[in-house]
């Protein structure tokens, strides 16, 4: 059950997207997410969807993995769609409006259907773009990129390197702790612990035998790791250099240009076509 979490997982491959500079990737990922929300007309959104699909194509990440990353938000998707279908009423800016159909007490408006479709596409693209980032970038590269991007903050005496190291470690330990949780659950179930029945309070109480050993072992691992890091002379980020320096390659520039073109396209399509949202 806990094993199904795909967040923060890396999908090993040597695609263009994998080789992109992590700094560029982070910035572009943020930019494209912002532009998903800049989209206000269907053609503009269509451009973003096409862009997302092309990105998936270039990433060589298996379609099944992409589908898996959408699965957890399915509930949110359905929920927003239903709310939008039944509760969005009103006219377009040019005065058009239409009641599409009536279901019992509810009126379904033309605009509601459009808005529902629009939001769904938007959320799906958002999830795909952000999971592409983690699928194609190792946690180490991601935090290295983030550290570099945030390095101007060092001037404000913020320990960016420490923050980045903490993030790397946190990401590194997600799969380990998931495995550990599974093990502890199995052990307590073997002693007759009942984790899947009863009310909310009973269930929360039933988690104590899982939670305490997990915390204890997380602390134990933290101490061991701190010791191992000290043994390898880690004294914090000061004066630490990297074996692999990040360099901007021509492909990074090309990607940047493509993304900027798409953004420009979105703005243009927003202006020339009817706004839905």
């Amino acid at each position: 059950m806990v094993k199904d979490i795909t967040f923060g997982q890396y999908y090993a491959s040597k695609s263009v997207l994998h080789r992109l500079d992590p700094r560029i990737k982070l910035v572009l990922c943020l930019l494209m997410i912002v532009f998903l929300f800049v989209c206000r007309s269907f053609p503009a959104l269509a451009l973003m969807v096409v862009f997302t699909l092309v990105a998936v194509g270039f990433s060589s990440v298996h379609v099944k993995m992409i589908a898996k990353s959408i699965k957890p938000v399915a509930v949110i998707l359905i929920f927003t769609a239903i709310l939008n279908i039944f509760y969005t009423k009103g006219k377009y800016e040019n005065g058009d409006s239409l009641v599409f159909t009536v279901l019992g007490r509810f009126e379904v408006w033309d605009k509601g259907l459009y808005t529902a479709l629009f939001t769904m596409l938007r959320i799906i693209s958002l999830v795909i773009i952000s999971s592409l980032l983690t699928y194609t970038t190792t946690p180490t590269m991601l935090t290295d990129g983030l550290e570099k991007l945030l390095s101007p903050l060092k001037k404000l005496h913020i320990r960016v390197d420490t923050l980045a190291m903490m993030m790397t470690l946190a990401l590194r330990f997600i799969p380990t702790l998931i495995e550990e949780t599974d093990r502890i659950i199995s052990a307590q179930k073997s002693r007759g612990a009942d984790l899947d029945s009863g009310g909310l309070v009973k269930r929360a109480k039933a988690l104590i035998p899982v939670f305490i050993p997990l915390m204890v072992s997380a602390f134990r691992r933290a101490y061991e790791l701190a010791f191992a890091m000290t043994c390898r002379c880690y004294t914090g980020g000061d004066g630490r250099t990297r074996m692999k320096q990040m360099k901007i390659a021509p492909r990074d520039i090309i990607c940047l240009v493509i993304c900027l073109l798409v953004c420009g396209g979105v703005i243009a399509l927003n202006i020339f076509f009817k706004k839905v949202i």
Partner: protein
Amino acid sequence: MSKAIEITNLTHKYTQSGAQEVVAVSDVNLSIEKGESIGIIGHTGSGKSTLISHFNGLLKPTSGDVVVDGTNIWADKETLRNARFKVGLCFQYPEYQLFEETVYKDIAFGPKNMKLSPEEIDERVLRAAEFTGISKSMLEKSPFELSGGEKRRAAIAGVIAMNPEVIVLDEPAAGLDPAGRKSLIDMIKAYRDSTGSTVIMVTHNMEDIARIAERLIVINRGKIALDGTVDEVFSRSDDLVQWGLKVPEITEVFTRLHNMGCNVPRGVYTVDEGVKILSRVMRGGAGLG
């Protein structure tokens, strides 16, 4: 009399991240009599742990049946719950499952889940503590204050306290020093001798298993490669090497001595037995007992 555990055509598959299917256990048939003492051996990743997780219904078989004490454990929720208490499973490094404020309370966790009366729980905790050599003063301590070996004993006591008909131990002595190892194995032996319950032990350590088991099951690539008495299994040392295992070192020594023409038998599996035979030979007697 019904069998303790009866497994027919058990197959377990799971999907790894990505998409490919892994067959961890494939078409295993196994029948365990009540009171047997069994050793399950196999190299790392051979599927032993997956197999034993089926004994008490932690894992659901992809296909096949698991029958404990005459009832199919997957029949309904109740039979599954009963299986958890009838088959006590003790995982590798069980000390990491300790969580209560005191050792006493932790050992009582299993019996409490069985909804026993407080008197019965008390009786079982004390009995389990006695078996595992946990003193009265230790029972009142926090489990996190104990030493590594003591924690291990406390965790095993937690399983014993459920009074299971079958006790399954996965690498019970892993990570202990030789003295701790020996006393733990002795403890399991004593427990078995006095209660007559079925003991199944999974291990890499051939010396340990030789001291406890009467029947050995060799697992290789999710299948039962060999199932027989200790003599039968350890006589096939070449096959064992091929499966990533070996015979106990003492057995190798005695086989060589035997082949060199010394007056000693071949099938010696424990050091204690070896010492006895050698001292008899040195006193001038016949080695063959």
